[in-house]
């Protein structure tokens, strides 16, 4: 049995919608089978209105123990630090976030906006959106570098735009089943079990990546090759399990021919969407990818790439995802 409160700030509700796609367990199972006591959630028909506000206040006062506080969306601080761009139950949302974070055993930021500001914080960041404990890659965010929840943990970041439902449900089940101690975090406070691997781990195009064979067109063009070389795919530089735990139980963006946009990393959307950066690989000398798989350098990469291209078998240059 664990109590859970979920609020949305500068949000699109995408993480909630993603969450509702969950199976094993479903959102309903979490309540009926795993005893997650949802004190309040904006979509799921819980206590509302004055009763909801009473719940928030009871949590803040300590009268009602709050085990898990989930926040979706950016913390909006504008205009001029007032937070009035996002009012909620008669107050700036940011004030609720501060007080509820202070009393929760565990604080979970779900989705990029809550983790690092996300799209609302893209230049020029019109609403002064902030992440819970990071603004982009800079630690601190709204709650500050030193913030620790009641259990002594920093904010648990479950990034992604949106987060995959399993990244959330499995963490909730872990907490509900007494395995909170097994949740190890990486240096961006993401659960390692999900974010140690790369988006590329398990990608169906990884052989073509190894032989440096590029996809050169969308549509039927994605029946062959790897999206890294021309279309700005960030799969080799992005930490996520998108190709280990498939989306909607079916696929992933890279499998379906869409370049990874790196949405589990704090810089998303990369290059602030400057002209020429969307779905286009940034290159040096017009040929070599500017950004390379984590831990490699340009000299090693170009040497290896040249050898790989020579070694590339015929099938690696042909349509492989055929009708």
């Amino acid at each position, binding site marked *: 049995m664990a109590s859970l409160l979920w609020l949305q700030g500068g949000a699109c509700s995408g993480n909630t919608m993603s969450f509702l796609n969950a199976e094993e367990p479903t959102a309903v199972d979490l309540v009926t089978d795993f005893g997650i006591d949802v004190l309040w959630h904006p979509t799921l*028909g819980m206590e509302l209105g004055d009763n909801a506000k009473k719940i928030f206040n009871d949590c803040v006062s300590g009268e009602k123990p709050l085990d898990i506080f989930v926040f979706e969306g950016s913390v909006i601080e504008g205009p001029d630090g007032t937070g009035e761009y996002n009012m909620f139950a008669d107050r700036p949302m940011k004030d609720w976030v501060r007080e509820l974070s202070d009393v929760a055993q565990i604080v979970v930021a779900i989705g990029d906006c809550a983790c690092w500001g996300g799209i609302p914080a893209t230049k020029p960041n019109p609403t002064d959106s902030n992440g819970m404990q990071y603004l982009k890659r800079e630690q601190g965010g709204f709650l500050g570098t030193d913030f620790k929840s009641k259990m002594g943990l920093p904010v648990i970041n479950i990034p992604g735009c949106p987060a995959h439902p399993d990244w959330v449900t499995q963490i909730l089940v872990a907490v509900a089943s007494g395995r909170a101690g097994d949740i190890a975090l990486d240096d961006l406070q993401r659960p390692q079990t999900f974010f140690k691997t790369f988006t590329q781990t398990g990608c169906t195009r990884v052989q073509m990546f190894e032989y440096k064979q590029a996809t050169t067109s969308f549509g039927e063009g*994605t029946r062959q090759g790897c999206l890294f070389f021309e279309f700005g795919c960030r799969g080799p530089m992005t930490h996520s399990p998108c190709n280990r735990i498939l989306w909607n139980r079916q696929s992933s963006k890279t499998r379906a021919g869409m370049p990874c946009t790196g949405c589990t990393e704090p810089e998303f959307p990369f290059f602030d969407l400057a002209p020429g950066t969307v779905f286009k690989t940034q290159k040096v000398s017009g040929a070599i990818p500017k950004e390379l798989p984590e831990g490699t350098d340009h000299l090693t990469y170009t040497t290896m790439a040249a050898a790989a291209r020579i070694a590339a078998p015929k099938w690696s240059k042909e349509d492989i995802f055929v009708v």
Partner: protein
Amino acid sequence: MAVTATQEGNTLDMHVSPLGRVEGDLDVRVKITDGVVTEAWTEAAMFRGFEMILKGKDPQAGLIVTPRICGICGGSHLYKSAYALDTAWATHVPQNATLVRNIAQACESMQSNPRYFYAIFAIDLVNKNYAKAEGYDEAVRRFAPFVGESYEPGVTLSNKPVEVYAIFGGQWPHSSFMVPGGVMCGPTLSDITRSIAILEFWRDEWLEKIWLGSSVDRWLENKTWDDVQAWCDENESQHNSDCAFFVRYAQEIGLHKYGGGVGNYLATGTFFEPSLYENPTVEGRNDALISRAGVYAGGEYHDFDHMRVKEDTSHSFFKDYGLLHPWEGRTEPITPEEGKKKDKYSWAKSPRYEVEGHGYIPLEAGPLARQVIAGREGAPDHADYDPLIMDMMDKLGPSIFVRQMARMHESAKLYKNTMKWLSDIDLHGSFYTKPVEHESGKGFGSTEAIRGSLSDWIVIEDGKIENYQVVTPTAWNVGPRDDQSQHGPIEKALIGSPIVDAEDPVELGHVARSFDSCLVCTVHAYDGKTGRELAKFKMGGM
């Protein structure tokens, strides 16, 4: 439950905060006199500044940014942002790509219908105010949150149609797989067969088994309100379906009697006949649509022309420019404090449409609007002509009930269309034609998100976005008054609503939620004369 209320005199001012949570928070203020809503203000309570973020960015930035405006209809945002670029860059879109885009758009909408109906709307049907209704126990048995017999399968099975979205787009929500010139995917045989199997499962387990109690085809034979009533009692299975129960119960609790709104409607249409839109243009758009565009105002049909759309900010927290077409649109916020001094009260702009003889008027967007337009005679063969909801409008007039029926009716049509489009895909054909990325251009892209017309207007100059304006269904419906003091559609729909129990005015929830703009409802009541807070009410819960 609700706190005790003390009513003084016969007038109550209520502040509803927050009421909606689709594109941010929505507050509503209403004035209630003698148990009837006499005045209403809808207040969008959050600002995120997406149009400001897009200015100066890569022309394709909208493909990534606009889906994140709303995670509930992010696929619809992607769909229209791709067409905005197609028209701006004069692309070629292969027929297969049009089919895939149609399928994806339809799958998002098929997801939304049961999720919205059970998780958002039907919860209000088990409000204790209806405890004396004959159908109450049955409503509770079916629709009670989490434990209702239909609630769990309805909410859970809503994830199936978007599995098909993921097969083509990689994931749902928030893929960006539609690009100018087509789609990114090159589907394989099993992508098609698996999609068919998933949708058949969804049809079997929810649409036919739980919602209709009949085959989809049998339901679609209904062309009039009389047909629907006869269908409800045709056999035990149909009689016991959620649909037939809703038809009976909605009438028992009076949902067919209020919540009508402005009575004027807009659909910008969606789904293209692939052979008619290989070269998307703004001018050629209406003729290529399957779910047609159109305006119904003053009891007459009009062709849709995007140049007649203008946005007003006289009551929005933005600088005042008068009415602007979105290509000239501006988004420059002012602080709520400053705005309130000028009678501004919302972060939504007020979209208006010029109808000859009527001036710039507010229009309702959404499933009801779409089905009103679907009832216009003279449709070409490829387009949807469907008289059912228009017949219900003639017999019953607009209301919460008819709005719901319009929406749920679409589930059957969406399913049929999607299965056809899946069978039309030529797997060996092309899905993408690389476009020329022109340095400048103007584009208009539009679709029908499940909750209504959704459009982008883009201006590209020097290889970057000079202006980007998004007009959402929530803006059409939730937008505040304009400079002529005309109410927005939800404001208008709230006025005239009976409030039987001022301590628990569930009627306001029904109206607002029938527009699907509302996930959270709270009511704060204030004494009309002194402004003193009298009571705070919970809406829509058990």
